[in-house]
């Protein structure tokens, strides 16, 4: 009899400004099955504190416009935004550089 998995392992890759905050480009995180991007970001905020939260959220539950998140290569806006479900795949969290002028 198959025992339902209770956790998933997300492979998280950080790009842009975020590796400098996290201290590494990627990490693996075990989370309960059914976890969402919102849960993942909450977990990361808890671990990495204000340095992470301030860069990712413009206000509680609202991402800065320059934050880009892909789940299994797909932009989360097409998968329910922060409610996008995680699997055992890859999550890319990107803080894009500003465009300038001059």
């Amino acid at each position, binding site marked *: 009899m198959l025992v339902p998995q209770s956790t998933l392992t997300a492979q998280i890759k950080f*790009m842009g400004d975020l590796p*400098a905050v996290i201290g590494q480009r990627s990490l693996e995180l075990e989370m309960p099955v059914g976890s969402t991007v919102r849960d993942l970001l909450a977990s990361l905020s808890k671990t990495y504190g204000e340095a992470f939260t301030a860069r990712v959220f*413009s206000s509680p539950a609202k991402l*800065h416009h320059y934050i880009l998140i*892909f789940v299994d290569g797909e932009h989360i806006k097409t998968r329910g935004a922060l409610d996008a479900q995680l699997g055992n795949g890859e999550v890319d969290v990107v803080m894009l*550089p*500003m465009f*300038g002028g*001059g």
Partner: protein
Amino acid sequence: MDATAQATKSRWIPTTCGMCYIGCGVRVQVEDGVAVNIEGNPENPQNRGKMCAKGKAGIMNLYNPHRVKVPLKRTNPEKGLNVDPGWQEISWEEALEQIAANLERIRESPKKLLIMCWGPETDINHWLKAFGSAFGTPHVNSTGSPTCGKVVHPVEFFSGGGFHQQPDLHYANFCMLVGTQFGIATRGSYNHHALDMAEARERGMKLVVVDPVGGYAASKANEWIPIRPGTDAALALSMLHVLLNELQIYDRNFLKNKTNAPYLVGANGRYLRDAKTNEPLIYDAADRRVKTHDDPSLRDPALTGSYETQGQRGRPAFELLREHVAKYTPEQTETITTIPAATVRRLAREFGEAARIGATITIDGVELPYRPACVDWAKGTQGHKHGFHQCWPLKLLNIVVGAVNVPGGILSTGAAGKQPHRWAPEGGTDGMLEEGGHHLPGGHPKAFPGRKPTRPVRMDAGELFPLAPHYHPLLPITFDNPAAYGLSYRLEMLIHTATNSLLSSFGDHKKVERLFQSLKFSVGFAVEVNETTLFDDIVLPFPSYLERYDFVTGLGTTTIPPGGEHDFHWQIRQPVVEPVAGVRHPQEVMQDIGERLGILGDMYRLLNHAFILTGENTLKAGRHYPAAEVIDRTARSWFGDAYGLDWFRKEGVIRLPRDIEEAYIGPFINARVPIYLEHFLQRGEELRTVTEELGLEWDFSDYKPLSDWMPCCSYDAARNGAYDLIAVHFKFPYVYGSFGNENPWIDEICERTNAYDILLNEAVGKAKGIRDGDSVWLESPVTKVRARVKLTQCIHPEAVGVGGHFGHWSPGMPIARGKGLNFNSLLPTDIDHIDKISTALDHCVQVKVYK
């Protein structure tokens, strides 16, 4: 020769100019594989067949005999402003191997990589941004100048919705330019606006130019008003006082319904907020109740009065603004600006009356507010110690008369579109303009709501500038003492585009020299060996714009296209001649580097997003793509399979009509714009906590919701007797950065127009015993240089004008070498000269001029 043979020998190829950041449509005549002539493409709605001198001279950039044609390696380990690198030619393989090896060295600490990717706005900019982000460095700088855009972009996104601003020359009857030569010598879509400006003047639009330098714009103006450098805010605040308090000219309907003017502000300067929803509150005079800003029953928001709600007393933000500006009487500001009080009053009246508050106009069957008056500002007003607050009151002039994104007013550029994608600015926090407003998805600089400050991890300490768009002018300051900002590492490697950041992107050359010397390994793309290249360890040859493919060809299509009733257009850049042997497309070079580091798939993911590649056209991990194929895939993604690269190669430009909702977005945006910067208080308080933790002394005087005029260092220095003049920078229509300085045709124009001289007021020169053409010392607090003087009445008597971006010394630029001077080299470059909101470096500097 028969006609057929003639036709095969000579042909016209449509492409995009690359002599500045705009990207005009051009057609290049090619004979026997040689480019012989360039004309404007009349099919392109941006420049409508017009060209400037820079574009016409582009051929001479292509055939510059001193171009870099093969990769070069430095053999002299010593680096310095005047140090010969000892170049040695190497193969591409060796160059890429060395670059990859040095990137591997910092792989575990990717923040040690600095990328300067201003290109200007071409594909290499996006490829380098993707590379830097995938590699994992926060130091990806995509801006070129230490001032340009530092204020206007973050201001425009929150007060207009787009990237930049433009007077609506189609309908304006009064246009005041402050510190800019819009439509006459500079700015995005310049060749377009030059024609519109001429037509507007012909039909009677009054053009007023406020500038220390009576340059090209002033020469076309009805009135040139010389102003003491660094005092623009005092003028604007005084005009606001006259409009709001003396004349009572303001657009009540616009202020009530489209701004935060009615938001109630408590004694602590913060909005009164609803206890349940936390939304800002407004007093509705219609039913005498206090409501949230988004209450559907809101009918008549009050702009005046004092109201108590939920145990707090508050007053509308508008009343605070009106009281605040009352101290800036024209008599008081005359002592600051030198502009007579009567002139300020007249200007304010002319502007306010020309705005025709309450008038409407019907265009294409749609009735719109009609406000044919606007104030425009740009580089000159931004480059100050308190640059943000020098500019913001100028924008407020447009806002209080409702001249924002409506016919005749100030227009936000590139803010909305329906084809080939949909984009538009949107409301967000507190009902204020916050989201969208940009065509290409990416990080766009917005000063609302800003970011919460944190302890820096960036070497430029950008975290301490939570409302700024970008931070690179800080690097020569912060790198010198990283520990002061809580940093415990150093930048080690630089990759930069084929621009000249040493001369153009910072200030004091000696400080920039130390920054560049501190980098262990530097890689630069180069068309010619300029002063920045002299610090490189590896130089990669870069194709001329006439040999290159780009999908994004300039700001004239993306963020600064012509506003108002003009078609959306897109064009590509294609090679008109074969690239010089040995020169590779930079897109392909970056693929090679990305693959060697194992991050090519991540780069593609970001590029698919940046270029809006979809479906089968996305770039796929594990594959290499010729530059031409990337263009083809992007074009198909945007416009459909019928409009791939081959279509653009032949036709040059695609035009898509825009409707009124795209041309005049003001009435259609469901969001308010600010007159009161409440969030500045919050960000200032948060920043105070961080700087106190770091033990940093910090100036918080800019973190205020209502602007004041605050003096630059030069203002005080020129008054205490140590210096008697203030140097300012101005632009020529035939010079952009140093792109054309090695071009013999542009050099000839510069010689014939005294562009290499400094401008000094004639009366001041005579008093100093200086004659026209004399060689003098120009001394600032950080350097002194020799300069030739042009005496003129067309400059404020307290100013010295330095134009262009000259002063080259690189042996790789023999035409430009030793001509003119580099204005940025005069600038004290320290934290005291940085605007604490925008990071703009103060561009007015106290100087002495003597023989």
